[in-house]
């Protein structure tokens, strides 16, 4: 099944050109849905990757990530007041 | 009475403001403190910034900031303070930032004393900081020139995007003479490369760093090209009765004033003596020396240092003529009498046919 994650509040994208595989996002992620790739990127790093399900869209991985563009956090837009609520962690 | 009696140090500040200078950052030091004091009095009145820094190191780095923000700016100091500023001067030359630094020299090394010397020549003219750079250096010899060359310094600093040093001794800084100023003020303008905290200037960056070896080399070559242009265009010197001079006296700043007095007396007695006064110490007026060499029999360099400009004179003449040297140090100025004696001695040794001595030896 490929549609399970659509029930999730969020998801994340990792730019494999930018990620240096430091693992801080993995440590920081509350639902623990990030892991390191087994393969290396062109610069020799095992980059972070989203496991594909369970992201809450909290944005903590983004906050702790040292690379400006390595992580993008997406949040599901659903009808109703919930759609207007911002990130759970506000800098 | 169009002229006013004014101290050289005060004339610098008024001329700077007329030239569009709107930032003064300095640290007090004798004999340059009047410049800082005058800036404190006048700069705020014209909407400029005056700030007394915690050190000369901070002051020159404040100039780095003000120049980065596109403001014509200046500082003033003396030997020990100029030594501390060398770091920032190197950074400014590297980052191609314009500024004007007035160095009202005093005695050294170390704490030395507060009397006038010309012993900052090496650290200013040769660049006391690290790296391949030059500063343009102007040497006034009167209060009027303190004003005129300050204005020129700001023009040159902007034209070459480089620090310019106004190198004056304590005498010129402290003395009062009649001075006349232009009656119109230059509009401060914003250079296109400045970082001014605006949308238009957001893309600009000021840095002296070029990590790549080829890029740094190319940057330094570009600086060299700039200095080469300055060497072609900006050389200034005063030829004072040098036409036909067989003994050429060489000095800058207060020394040149003394030399003119001596030369006038010697000339009145029929001796072919002239004065060559470098006004730009960098670029050095080497061609002026070479032009005089065929006619001159000897050059006498007079300095209040251990022979720092002497080296440049020798390089300029490259052995074409003998170069003699007379100096005083420690804050002493060579006296009229001392120089006249030296001229007499040179005349004896180098001039074939002398007028009878009694005709030209003047009582002093």
């Amino acid at each position, binding site marked *: 099944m490929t549609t399970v994650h659509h029930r999730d509040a969020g998801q994340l994208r990792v730019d494999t050109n930018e990620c240096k595989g430091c693992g801080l996002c993995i440590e920081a992620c509350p639902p623990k849905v990030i892991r390191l790739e087994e393969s290396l990127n062109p610069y020799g790093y095992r980059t972070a990757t989203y496991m594909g399900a369970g992201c809450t869209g909290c944005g903590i991985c983004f906050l702790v990530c*040292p690379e400006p563009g390595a992580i993008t956090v997406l949040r599901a837009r659903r009808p109703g007041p919930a759609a207007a609520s911002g990130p759970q962690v506000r*800098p | 009475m169009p002229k006013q009696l004014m101290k050289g140090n005060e004339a610098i500040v008024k001329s700077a403001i007329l030239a569009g200078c709107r930032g003064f950052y300095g640290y007090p030091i004798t004999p340059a403190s009047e410049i800082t004091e005058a800036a404190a009095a006048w700069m705020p009145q014209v909407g400029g910034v005056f700030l007394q820094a915690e050190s000369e190191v901070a002051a020159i780095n404040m100039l780095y900031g003000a120049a980065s923000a596109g403001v014509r700016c200046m500082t003033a100091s003396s030997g020990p303070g100029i030594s501390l500023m060398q770091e920032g001067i190197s950074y400014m030359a590297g980052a191609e930032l314009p500024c004007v630094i007035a160095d009202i020299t005093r005695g050294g090394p170390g704490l030395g004393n507060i009397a006038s010397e010309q012993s900052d020549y090496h650290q200013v003219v040769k660049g006391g900081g690290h790296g391949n750079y030059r500063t343009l250096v102007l040497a006034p010899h009167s209060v009027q020139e303190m004003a005129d060359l300050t204005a020129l310094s700001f023009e040159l600093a902007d034209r070459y995007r480089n620090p310019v040093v106004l190198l004056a001794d304590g005498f010129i800084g402290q003395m009062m003479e009649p001075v006349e100023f232009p009656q119109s003020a230059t509009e401060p303008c914003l250079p296109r490369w400045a970082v001014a905290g605006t949308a238009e200037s957001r893309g600009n960056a000021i840095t002296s760093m070029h990590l790549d070896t080829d890029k740094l080399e190319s940057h330094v070559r570009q600086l060299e090209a700039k200095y080469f242009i300055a060497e072609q265009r900006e050389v200034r010197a005063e030829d004072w009765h040098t036409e036909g001079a067989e003994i050429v006296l060489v000095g800058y700043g207060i020394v040149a004033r003394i030399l003119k007095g001596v030369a006038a007396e010697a000339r009145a007695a029929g001796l072919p003596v002239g004065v060559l006064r470098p006004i730009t110490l960098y670029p050095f007026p080497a061609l002026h020396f070479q032009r005089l060499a065929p006619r001159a029999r000897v050059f006498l360099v007079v300095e209040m240092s251990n022979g720092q400009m002497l080296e440049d004179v020798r390089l300029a003449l490259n052995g074409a003529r003998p170069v003699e040297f007379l100096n005083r140090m420690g804050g002493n100025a060579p006296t009229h009498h001392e120089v006249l004696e030296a001229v007499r001695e040179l005349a004896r040794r180098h001039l074939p046919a002398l007028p009878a001595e009694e005709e030209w030896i003047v009582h002093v």
Partner: protein
Amino acid sequence: MSSEPEVSWEIARSKPASFYSTYERKDELQHATHYCPGCGHGIIHKMLAQAIDDLGIQDRTVLISPVGCSVFAYYYFDVGNVQAAHGRAPAVATAVKRSRPGSVVIAYQGDGDLSAIGSAEILHAANRGEALTVIFVNNAIYSMTGGQMAPTTLMGQTSTTSPQGRGAHEGYPLHVSELLATLEAPVYIERVGLGDNKQIAQAARAVRRALDNQVRGLGFSLVEILSPCPTIWKMTPVEAQHWVRDVMEGTFPLGVLRDRTQSAQSDAVPAPPPLLSAVPRILGIAKTGLPAEPSAVGAAPDLNLQVRMAGFGGQGVLLIGEVLAEAGLDAGLEVSWLPSYGPEMRSGTSNCHVRLARELIDSPLVAHPDVLVAMNEPSVRKFCAMVRAGGWILYNGETLPEDCDWKDVHVLARPFTRIAKDLGDARAANMVMLGALLEIAGNLPRTSIESALGRLVRNPRWLALDEAALASGRKLMREACAEANHAS
């Protein structure tokens, strides 16, 4: 097919707009920063960029990059950038901010930069209350240069320059934020850490606050951020993060050390500068403000006078020299006035050289004066031998010291101080002596002297006294000359 509801996705967190999309100032790998994996700088950069975005100040922002690992910050931030010398960012930032008060200036510094070589610059910028935002990244080590000891290195922590671990001989960890919090001016100082999610979230709030304070014109704000350096610490990024929380925080407690943001006043809007055309007048050099003609009509007098004036500091020798020079200028002569200066002005002897001439003056130094005005004995001893044959010594005393009696020189020795005291104030002795001198320089127009004195002596009571003193001096000299003539 699936019965899932339609879901659209919006970007909740992404690279802030205040970063460049590609880092074109970098020589290579322009898609990523130069920072090591797990470096705190990247995290702090993001907080800062996010705060710039959120406050809508990208165009106004000027970032001062330091020396240290963040020396290349200007590769990344799409704002106005100035890269500074090691430790000098607060000085550079000070002048940028004062030059362009509308800008938002951030000094970004590491611990070596800010707390060692730049300790003076940060202290004074804070003490002046410069309206800056300082981001102080403390990782307890010199990282860029390969792991040498910093002022913030912990006790016992090894570094390449404290291989046995930092001991008391190397000094103790410097608590910069606490030091700065003793100053009056700063409005906001907080220490935060990057030790865990919670700390990082708090750090982001502090950074934003420090920036917002500047936007609101409140004054000096500094955020110290305890930051991991996995590479030099020889830890994994996660270990390094925990070390910040578990070890560093023990030495550097987190918290707000200063918060005067409630009581701080916004900076006043600077007044607009005066019109350019008004500048010469403001500087007092507008020709319209000066007398158009010398007060003395006619050609300049035929006068060539070289004078040395000397006395104790406070006796007013510099002033009478100035009066003489001003009068000469007023009379259309070339003049110069050269003082001794420095400590001599405050104690000991003071002297000046004055020249008046029809022709351009070559040297302002008077080696052989026509007139020596000596207001005390040390001065006459020092300068009497210089006086030109046929010249004058004016001496403040009953008689010239015997060994100073130069045979080819005229002497007027009088107790000028007592004479002045009889006139009303002993301090006018200098003017009595100037009067005597002016009698020698007889062809200097009186109008020029009065005009010079009026410009230099503003107090009417003193002006009246000085005029009387001048007249008294002239009279003394006339009488002395008459006596001499009579005697011969």
